[in-house]
């Protein structure tokens, strides 16, 4: 690298009013609200090549009821929220990855054009959540091909029209597990069974009925013991309470749910993280431990005792509650209003409790 290039890279500094990290429903709704309330320069930083977030690869309804008073599929909804943001004057920077959160709102970004610094008066983290993969669940067995999460499966099916297996076993009975089931059905994948460690599914009737309607057996009180297979998954060992281990042939394992905040940026930064939820610590306005930073949407998980039980979950089996796109949308809007007040000096001064 020549000295000249080094100098230009160092001096590429952009100054903005609000930088929003993540162009999913929360981030876009916050950005739209900020623009509507008169904030000049609002930039949404999205690391993917396309904006819209997770709904882009949820190829089924219902999306958009709260925002657009219509029932849409995920991809259509994603397109609509991106258009709305663009029409509102929000700048969306794609293929732009934030690699460092600095004190006082200084961000280091990288994009195919190079590395740059951005200084934002306020930063909003809307980086969402992801499922816990096999490794973090410490599951026994081989590391063969065909082990997926719902997110990976859905992006493969809806964005690339490919399938990673034909007869997988689905682990989990959260709402997303049934979304995975629908995805399988749409793609011509026939799951062998669904497994749930508890004595009843996590979701209420009639959602859990989907499995039997689709002819997929639901094993309750059953644990995945081990994944078998050399190159690709060939079978799994499962064990029901007190029963001997049983071998089920399958060509994939789909781990669903057990959501965890995508808070890795915050984790390596100066911001405080809640050790229980792995979310950034926020006050009632959504402010982080450095008050220039805010967080909203699914990256902010309420702790178990504070969590409201969404209507589709049973109280008994509550998994990490995940806000749907509509709730993220309204959370983004609320937090944006707080940021506007804050920029006008009208927010109560910062008193953080951790």
């Amino acid at each position: 690298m020549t000295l000249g290039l080094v100098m230009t890279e160092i001096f590429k500094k952009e100054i903005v009013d609000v930088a929003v990290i993540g162009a999913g429903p929360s981030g876009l709704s916050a950005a739209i609200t900020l623009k509507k309330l008169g904030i000049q320069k609002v930039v949404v930083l999205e690391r993917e090549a396309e904006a819209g977030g997770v709904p882009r690869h949820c190829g089924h309804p219902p999306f958009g009821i709260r925002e657009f008073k219509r029932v849409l599929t995920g991809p259509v909804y994603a397109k609509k929220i991106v258009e709305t943001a663009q029409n509102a004057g929000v700048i969306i920077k794609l293929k732009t990855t934030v690699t460092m959160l600095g004190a006082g709102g200084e961000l280091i970004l990288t994009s195919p054009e190079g590395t740059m610094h951005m200084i934002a008066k306020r930063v909003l983290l809307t980086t969402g959540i992801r499922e816990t993969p096999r490794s973090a669940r410490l599951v026994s067995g081989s590391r063969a091909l065909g082990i997926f999460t719902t997110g990976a499966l859905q992006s493969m099916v809806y964005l690339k029209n490919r399938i990673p297996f034909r007869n997988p076993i689905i682990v989990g009975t959260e709402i997303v597990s049934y979304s995975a089931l629908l995805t399988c059905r749409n793609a011509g994948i026939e799951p062998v069974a669904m497994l749930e460690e508890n004595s009843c599914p996590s979701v209420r009737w009639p959602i859990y009925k989907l499995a039997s309607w689709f002819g997929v057996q639901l094993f309750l009180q059953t644990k995945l013991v081990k994944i078998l297979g050399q190159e690709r998954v060939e079978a799994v060992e499962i064990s029901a309470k007190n029963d001997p281990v049983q071998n089920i042939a399958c060509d994939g394992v789909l781990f669903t749910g057990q959501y965890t905040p995508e808070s890795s940026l915050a984790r390596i930064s100066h911001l405080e993280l809640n050790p229980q939820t792995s979310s950034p610590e926020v006050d009632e306005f959504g402010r982080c431990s450095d008050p220039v930073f805010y967080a909203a949407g699914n990256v902010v998980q309420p702790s178990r005792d504070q969590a409201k039980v969404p209507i589709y979950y049973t109280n008994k089996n509550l998994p990490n509650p995940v806000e749907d796109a509509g709730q993220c949308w309204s959370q983004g809007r609320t937090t944006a209003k707080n940021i506007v007040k804050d920029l006008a000096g009208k927010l109560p001064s910062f008193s953080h409790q951790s």
Partner: protein
Amino acid sequence: MPNTPRTNSKLKVDNRNSALLGDADAAIIGGGVVGCAVARRLALAGISVILLEKSADILDGASKGNSAILHTGFDAPEGSLELACIRSGYSEYLKIRESLNLPLLKTGALVAAWTSEEEERFPNILAKARNNGIDDLQLLSRQEVLVKEPAISANIRAAIAVPHEFVIDPWSAPLAYLSQAVANGGQAVFNAEVKGGEFFGNHWMLHTSRGSVKATHVINCAGLFGDLVDADVLGQSEFTIKPRKGQFVVFDKAAGSLVRSIVLPVPTELTKGIVIFPTIFGNLAVGPTAEEQESRSDASVNQEILQKLHTQAVSQIPALANIPVTATYAGIRPATENKEYRVVENAERNWITLGGIRSTGLTAALGLAQYVHKLLEKQGSKFKSLYKPVVPSVPNLAEHLPRDWQTSGYGEIVCHCELVTEREICEALTSSIPAGNLDGLKRRTRVTMGRCQGFYCSARLAELTEGKFAESLDIGACHD
């Protein structure tokens, strides 16, 4: 989809396997770290080499799962060939690493004593290190340890600092060795399992699943299958491989800043024990276990054991309790009935076996390669070392050094957790030793090896690797 054959285009291969696949001064069986290092050393010495690997890529056996430590040899068996090779391998790595663009993380190690019994063994460790020529070990009190590594549990009693135990990239190093062999005229053939062979008094004819290979000398570096290759081809084996599995748990990169040193246990007669070590990629890992097993290929992990490893790591570094696990894996070491390396020379039949090379092999490989070169010279072979060898450079994956994403024009970031670019993936698929399977691509780029394990990038990766590998991420199109 069949794998595209990756042979030298000048050679003809037909389906009956009768064609001559290669003709070289030395055939090296096995593309683990030892085989790659031997290929490099001999190629630089002007010896024509052909490396035969039964898998679609290098590092598919014992070399794929280890703790990536560059050992000083402070605790190696005194007076052993292992120690000599560790020492010479260590200094050669430091000498060549910059030219090949191989990273080094100067961690240092702490041999930690948690009980008074362990502490009592310290004088022996210090004496052994001195005998082995490493005289910079320092005794640290609990207080000194905690100043140096504040995240270590205050239950520690004392430690010995070993300042020159370092961490390297366990996959880029062998890749660089073989790349240099190939850049200097060597040949590497994949999916070529050696099934048998005959010795004709002055040369071997090896039969592989891809065709026959004529070679004056054979160097058996078949790792976990070394005894079987000896038995099948040479007709006798001096040792038996006793596969020993080691499981590991890798913590999120947030743990990378917790501890800077390798934390070693006080070793026992049987094993070096369970280590907590920073990885060159910025994580902190714990392992390996030592589990005897029959299978030479079953590298499956076990939940209970992973949980135990996790608990042990948390008891030594309490802050790990709040840090998520990124990955779990297991490696298999080619142990034998004896503790030492099993290096066997059969000079009458032009055959050398490098067997029983376990965890120290990553460091010792370059030393073993020097040793093989000397043995061949002693056998009277005259070769002329290359005057100006080609020095290829491998891509850097180390977290503490500039990565590809820091230079513009990378296309896009495909794997967000590990910041792997499209350009890196394309290069790994088209380099002189291109990735032969998905695992090989992961080792060359780190794609999907981060905290989400493919949640975000599997689809894009399936697209980028379509048609490249025998086994791909996807199995076909959706029905419509």
